[in-house]
C-alpha cells in the first residue's frame, strides 16, 4: 500500500515538475505537450466513435515572452498577403541578432483570418510562415533550425468578426 502511494507521489511530483519546466522555458517543450503519440494511445470504439487526446502548447504567450525579452514574437499581414512590412523586418532583425548567438530550433506558426476557404487559408498561412523563415535565413539563421507549420484559420487569436480581430489573426507566431 505504501509503495503504491509513494509511486503516485513521485508521479505527481514529476507531473508538477514538467508543468514548471514547460511554463518556465516554453521552448524545450516542443514535443512534450503535443501528444505526438496521441494517435497510438487513442481509444477507438467499434461503433466508430473515437477519442484522440492531444495537449496544448504549455509555453508562455507571445506577450509574456515579449515582456521578458523585449523582442517581438508575432508578425502581422494584410488580407491575402504574405509580404513583410518594414516594422516586421526591423523586429526580425532584432530576433535574428539574438538567434545567431543561440542554438536550438524555432517554430513559425502561420495563421489567417477566417475569411476565405479553410484549405486556401492553410496554404496562405504556410506562405506567411515561410516568408518569415526566408527572411531569418537571409539574416544568417541556419535553415535547419526553423520549422514552419500553418494552422490556417483554425486557431484565431481573436474571435470577433471585425477588422480589428481579423488583423490580429493574420499573423505568424515565432515560438523559440
Amino acid at each position, binding site marked *: 500500500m505504501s509503495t503504491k502511494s509513494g509511486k503516485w507521489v513521485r508521479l505527481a511530483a514529476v507531473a508538477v515538475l514538467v508543468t514548471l519546466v514547460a511554463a518556465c522555458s516554453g521552448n524545450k517543450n516542443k514535443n512534450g505537450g503535443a501528444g505526438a*503519440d*496521441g494517435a497510438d494511445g487513442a481509444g477507438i*470504439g467499434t461503433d466508430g466513435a473515437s*477519442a484522440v487526446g492531444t495537449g496544448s502548447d504549455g509555453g508562455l504567450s507571445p506577450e509574456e515572452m515579449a515582456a521578458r525579452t523585449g523582442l517581438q514574437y508575432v508578425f502581422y499581414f494584410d488580407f491575402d498577403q504574405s509580404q513583410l512590412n518594414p516594422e516586421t523586418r526591423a523586429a526580425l532583425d532584432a530576433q535574428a541578432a539574438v538567434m545567431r548567438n543561440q542554438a536550438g530550433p524555432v517554430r513559425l506558426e502561420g495563421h489567417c483570418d477566417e475569411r476565405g*476557404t479553410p484549405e*486556401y487559408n492553410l496554404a496562405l498561412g504556410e506562405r506567411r510562415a515561410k516568408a518569415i523563415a526566408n527572411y531569418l535565413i537571409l539574416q544568417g539563421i541556419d535553415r535547419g533550425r526553423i520549422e514552419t507549420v500553418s494552422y490556417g484559420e*483554425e486557431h484565431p487569436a481573436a474571435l*470577433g468578426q471585425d477588422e480589428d480581430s481579423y488583423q490580429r489573426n493574420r499573423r505568424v507566431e515565432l515560438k523559440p
Partner: protein
Amino acid sequence: MMIRALFLMCCLLSGAAVQAAELMIEITQGSDDPTKIAVVPFGATPGLLPPDAVDGIVSADLQRSGLFEAMAVSDMIAQPHEKSQVFFTDWRQQGADYVAVGRMTRDPAGLYRVTYELHDVLRQSQVLQETVNGSEAQLRDIAHYISDKIYEKVTGIKGAFSTKIAYVSTSSDRRSFRLIKADADGERALTILDSNEPILSPTWAPDGKQLAYVSFEDRRPRIWRQVIATGQREALTNFPGLNSAPAWSPDGRRMAMVLSKDGNPEIYVLDLATRQFTRLTNHFAIDTEPTWMPDGRSVIFTSDRGGKPQIYQADATTGALTRLTFEGAYNARARPMPDGSGIVYTHRAEPGGPFHIALQNFKRNTVRILTETIYDESPSIAPNGSMIIYATKRMGKGILAVVSVDANVKYFLPAAAREVREPAWSPYVR
C-alpha cells in the same frame, strides 16, 4: 515515457457515442408550387409505441426537400391505414395531391414490418406499395427509405434522404474539435474523432464507408483515413509542410491531395494500392483544394497563379491545364455536379465583399449566386444533385445551411451549442 503516459491520461477525452441531434432544422424558403402530400400517421398493433414515428420522419423529409408541402395531421379529414380506407374525393377537397398511408407490426423477436402505400389523388390510383423490415434501431433508416421512394415516384429524381453528412464541430473558443457523422437530417450524430487540435477537410470515400480528413493531432497537418464502422484509422501522409485537402477519385483507387514538401503547395495524386505519389501541378503559386470531376479524368483545384484564387482544371494524366473561373475576385474550393454539368464554389464578386456559393453551368456558360448569407463556404452537393450543403455564419456563429441548386429551397442547420463547419454530403450508401 511515464510522463507522456500520464499526460495522455489527463488529456484523453471520454469517447463520445451517438448523440441526439446536434443540429436543428429551420426551413426558411420552399418551392413556389410544392406538391401537397398527406402522410397519414401509420397504424400500429395496439400497444406498439415505436421510439421513432416513421410517418413523422417521412413527412419532415419531404417537407425539408422544399418540393413538398406536408399536410398537418390535425388538418386531416381521416386517418386511413390502407387502400380500402382511402376516399379520394375527401382528399381532393382538402387539396392533397398525394396521400401516403402505412401500418406496422413488431414480431416477438423485435423485428418491425412496415408497409406503406402512396396514392395519387387526382388519378385515384395507388402508385407505390411495399413492406420493409428492420430492427427498432433501423426505424429511421426505414423512414428515410420510404421518403426516397415517394420522392423518386413523384419527382422522377432519386431521393437522397438516406444519405449522411460529415462535418466539423468546434467549441466557440476553438479549443475542441470533433469530426461528426450524422444522418442528412442531422439526427443520429456520431463523433468520429475528438481532438484538442484542428480537424478539417472531411471527405467521403465513394463507397460511403470511409472518411478522409486532416488532423493536427501531431501538431502538424497529416491526412488520415478512417473506416467509419470499425474506427480503424491510418495516417496516409507525413511530409514536411502541408499534407491536406484529400479527395478520393470516383473509383476509390486514388486520392488527390495537397503537399508542400517541395517548397510550396502542389496537387499530388496518391495511388492507394501502390502508395506512389504523382505530382500533378508545378507552379510557385498556391495550388490547393483538389477534387475530381465525376468521370475521373480530371482534377479541378484552386490556384492563385493568376494573382487571385481561381478554379482550374488539370487533366489527371497529362496535367494539361484549363482555367474555369473568370468572374469575381475570389473563387475557391469547387465541387462538381454529379452529372459533370457544372461546379459550385465559394465566390466573392469583389475585394472586401461577401462570400457566397455560386453555381457555374458549363453548357450554358452561366454563373449564378445561390446564397444571400455572408461568409458562405465549403459547398457540398447531395449525390442526386438537388441540394447543396454549405457552411455560413449567423450572429457570429458557424452554422450549416442548405440551398437547392435552383436556389428556391433554403434551410438552416444550426447547432445547439457548438459551432459547425466544413460539411460533406455522403455518396449514396448501400
